[in-house]
């Protein structure tokens, strides 16, 4: 059967994206792409990174074989010369003719070059393609000074590129009275300008270049005000010009100031001809950003596959980093009083400027500008786009809440979001889509949502939000929502905790027989194992529980890339004697282990064969070491600074207190790992405020902080109680930990646990300090039991023949190590060989 032929003119970012989207939707088209440049489509947004070390291949959007794999014909360095729409044929530079059923213009734009006398001189460049960059790069080698005409987004990018090329004396010349006149307001421009000046750029505003001087090559710019600026080279970045000449020549309608006229289906005045990206003019506007270009590609690809979709304009909000400076604008950024009310925050000391425009009734956020700190951009954009009603203190949007209850507000966010709010941006799924899928009964959990909407299947960043939305929708329908563990246990973690406790169960199989069904799985096994450990603190590899442990607990070591394991002995408080250091060195040498100091003030040894683990630990234990539980969901380290024993600022002996804390809670299993630190004074060298619980010495005692977190979502710990004596401090930590172990969801760190807690830190304080639940005495009793049951797991493992037997790779050749484990040398040590297959991004 003859397939419809699609010809795409242009192999830029949007042309490429169109091919990708069309192929993803259908195999029913022959696709032929013409590219003018000799390269496959590359990332023009990050063009300047070409100068900071990226190669053309790094910037390429596809792999060399992609077009072939997708069955798309790509003809590079072969521009289309002419088109005959009557017979639907394009004539290309190779002298051939190609017929089409659908013709797509994705010709993009070129640099707009103003007609200044002398523009043709040597040393004048535009900033558009990799070829341009190559030319600029080689000319820059013989230039000491440079200028960029154009103080917009691309101009600033170009200026950065020139600085990267080593031209320290670089100027920006702008016709308007300020930088980035289209995106940011005057005060924002001022702030940006002072930051750029501080970086060494010279900024010339209100300058109209009247001619380019020099004999053959450029020597200076002459301005209409009679002044001049001597420069060795010039880059023009004064805007873009849609590439519409080919369309125009074959009678396609174009706009008076350029651009191929399209309707909301991206269709031109010829029903078989379409235009997308920067060459397309929709509703009087050229969309010079990548996101709307991609949206146009999506609209066209959908329509060709008979899925109706229309382009109705696009939000031009942007956030970018210019030379390391955050710059963002969103919504209606230029509206000003009396049409709105503005709130402005300016911090010249730190170079931060924030402006938000709110409606006169104070109800809605209309738009704004952020310079120097755009961390709030996403939240502000959602608030404006979704017309969310503002609180009575809208200044908190840019200043943050100044009340005590930070963190507590995050629970309310999701319900306030409107249905149109985009939750999964990878798949374009809104809050309404997710809630509807739950409301109509087809979805009851995250997996269902993933299957039926594809939300959460891309980067996965939205998964926690999806879970909350599912719960929220089910609840609002009056359904009793239970966070059940998996198909084998119809209980929440907390319920199962109590059941195991009451029934005094000690093994996974007992729990499965009593309260579960079928055979269990990789979700409930480690969860139940963790509960058993939290309740009884028995050796985790006994009673058949070994096979119910998670990957790392199973062999009391972290499994590493390649299949080897790491060995991490406990070094309480980070204090270690020279003799013990020598033992670690000797053991590492003997078993050929890679060694590294960890962030938690201890020493990791990597690359141990499974068979060697018991031998290694035997030697370590003989030297007085014990397990560091780096593999377990439990206490990791209690970091300390040197404190009053050595430090001239130290108020108390933070090392001794850290050791006391670490030895108290070592080996206790919890819903997730937890970390602590003790600092000897307010200088906070131990970074206690980033820990699950952290302690800082004061003149009068200790300040206790809780629920901090480092990692991917850093969160400062909150001050929980002040000036405590050591005993009270430990008592509060006892209760805090037991409350956490009792009530947190699986794999939830203390920070997230607190964020989800109704009442937040005030409630937590009430429970722990004022004993509002009447649980304090029981928790203190329980934790004493856990502490007294502590034994070094590794000591037991090496001494128990039945457990020790499992530390061999082959059941039928117990002495042989896994021959597939490979190491390579790096900086005088070994490292694991890379994954043998490439990572797919």
């Amino acid at each position, binding site marked *: 059967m003859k397939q419809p032929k699609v010809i795409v003119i242009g192999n830029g970012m949007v042309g490429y994206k169109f091919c990708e989207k069309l192929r993803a939707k259908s195999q029913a088209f022959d696709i032929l792409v013409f590219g003018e440049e000799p390269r496959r489509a590359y990332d023009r947004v990050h063009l300047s990174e070409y100068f900071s070390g990226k190669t053309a291949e790094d910037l390429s959007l596809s792999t060399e074989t992609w077009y072939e794999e997708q069955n798309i014909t790509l003809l590079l360095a072969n521009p289309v010369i002419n088109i005959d729409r009557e017979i639907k044929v394009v004539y290309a530079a190779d002298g051939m003719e190609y017929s089409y059923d659908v013709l797509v213009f994705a010709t993009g734009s070129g640099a707009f070059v103003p007609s200044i006398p002398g523009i043709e001189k040597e040393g004048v460049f535009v900033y558009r393609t990799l070829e341009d960059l190559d030319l600029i790069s080689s000319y820059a080698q013989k230039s000491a000074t440079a200028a960029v005409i154009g103080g917009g987004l691309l101009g600033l990018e170009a200026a950065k590129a020139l600085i990267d090329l080593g031209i320290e004396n670089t100027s920006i010349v702008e016709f308007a009275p300020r930088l980035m006149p289209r995106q940011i307001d005057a005060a924002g421009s001022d702030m940006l300008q002072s930051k750029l000046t501080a970086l060494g750029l010279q900024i010339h505003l209100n300058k109209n270049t009247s001619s380019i001087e020099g004999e053959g090559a450029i020597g200076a710019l002459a301005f209409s005000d009679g002044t001049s600026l001597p420069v060795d080279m010039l880059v023009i970045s004064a805007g873009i010009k849609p590439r519409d000449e080919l369309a125009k020549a074959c009678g396609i309608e174009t706009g008076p100031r350029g651009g191929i006229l399209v309707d909301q289906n991206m269709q031109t005045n010829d029903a078989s001809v379409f235009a997308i990206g920067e060459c397309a003019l929709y509703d009087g506007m050229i969309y010079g950003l990548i996101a709307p270009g991609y949206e146009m590609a999506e609209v066209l690809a959908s329509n060709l596959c008979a899925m109706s979709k229309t382009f109705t304009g696009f939000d031009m909000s942007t956030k970018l980093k210019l030379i390391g400076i955050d710059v963002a604008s969103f919504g209606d950024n230029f509206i000003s009083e009396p049409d709105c009310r503005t709130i402005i925050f300016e911090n010249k000391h730190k170079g931060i400027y924030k402006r938000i425009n709110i409606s006169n009734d104070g109800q809605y956020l209309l738009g704004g500008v952020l310079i120097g700190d755009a961390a709030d951009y996403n939240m502000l954009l959602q608030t404006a786009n979704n017309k969310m009603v503002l609180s009575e203190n809208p200044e908190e949007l840019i200043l943050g809440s100044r009340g005590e209850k930070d963190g507590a507000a995050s629970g309310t966010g999701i319900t306030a979001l409107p249905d149109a709010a985009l939750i999964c941006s990878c798949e374009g799924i809104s809050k309404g889509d997710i809630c509807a899928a739950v409301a109509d009964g087809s979805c009851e959990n995250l997996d269902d949502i993933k299957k039926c909407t594809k939300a959460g299947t891309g980067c996965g960043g939205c998964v926690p939000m999806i879970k909350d939305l599912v719960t929220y929708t089910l609840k609002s329908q009056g359904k009793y929502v239970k966070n059940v563990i998996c*198909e*084998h246990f119809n209980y929440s973690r907390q319920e199962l905790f109590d059941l195991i406790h009451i029934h005094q169960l000690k093994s996974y*199989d007992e729990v499965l027989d009593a309260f579960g069904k*079928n*055979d*269990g*799985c*990789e979700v*409930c*096994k*480690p969860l139940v194992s963790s509960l058993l450990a939290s309740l009884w603190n028995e050796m985790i590899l006994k009673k*058949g529980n*070994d*096979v*119910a442990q*998670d*990957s790392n607990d*199973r*062999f009391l070591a972290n*499994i590493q*890339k*390649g*299949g080897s394991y790491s060995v991490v002995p406990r070094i309480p408080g980070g204090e270690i004697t020279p003799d013990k250091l020598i033992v670690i060195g000797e053991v590492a040498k003997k078993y050929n282990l890679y060694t590294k100091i960890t962030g938690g003030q201890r020493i990791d040894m990597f690359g141990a064969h499974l068979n060697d683990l018991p031998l290694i630990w035997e030697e370590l234990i003989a030297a007085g070491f014990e397990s560091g539980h780096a593999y377990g969901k439990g206490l990791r380290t209690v970091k300390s600074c040197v404190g009053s024993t050595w430090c001239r600022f130290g108020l108390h002996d933070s090392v001794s207190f850290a050791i006391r804390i670490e030895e108290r809670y070592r080996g206790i299993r919890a819903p997730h790992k937890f970390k602590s630190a003790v600092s000897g004074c307010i200088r906070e060298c131990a970074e206690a405020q980033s820990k699950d619980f952290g302690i800082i010495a004061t003149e009068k005692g200790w300040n206790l902080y809780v629920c901090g977190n480092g990692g991917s979502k850093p969160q400062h710990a909150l001050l929980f109680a002040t000036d405590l004596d050591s005993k009270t401090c430990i008592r509060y930590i006892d209760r805090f930990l037991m409350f956490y172990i009792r009530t947190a969801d699986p794999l939830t760190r203390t920070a997230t646990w607190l964020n989800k807690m109704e009442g937040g830190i005030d409630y937590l304080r009430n429970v722990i300090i004022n004993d509002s639940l009447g649980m304090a005495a029981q928790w203190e009793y329980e934790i004493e039991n856990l502490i007294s049951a502590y034994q070094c797991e590794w000591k037991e493992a090496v001494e128990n023949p039945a457990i020790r037997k*499992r530390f061999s*790779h*082959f*059941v*039928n*050749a117990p002495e*042989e190590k*896994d021959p*597939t*484990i490979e190491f390579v040398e790096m900086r005088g040590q070994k490292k694991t060989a890379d*994954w*043998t*297959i490439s990572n797919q991004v």
Partner: protein
Amino acid sequence: MTDTLTTWLEACRVEDAVENGGVCVKNGEEQIALFYFTRRNEWFATQNECPHKKQMALSRGMIGSATDEPKVACPFHKKTFSLLTGECLTGDECAIKTYPVKVENGLVYIGTSPNY
């Protein structure tokens, strides 16, 4: 596959296998994961290598079931595979090889084809 084409590898004694878990069996250059699913009173054998990142790890994975399908989860990234068919149950990894298992006189045998 008929019995005449199958070579039976003596893997281990029943008591050497791990109850409700796996062990790794060496067969020349090849590594086979052997699972003693005591709870179901069934034996399974698969390739030891997880196809996701090519790690020799499946024998150290947790076993369990999805509805009634017995499965193993790789300890590296928790990709799960059917112990019956070898099919990947989470995502698009290619299927793993499975082998027949028989127990005679307290010894466990894995059926390997010489064609492999």
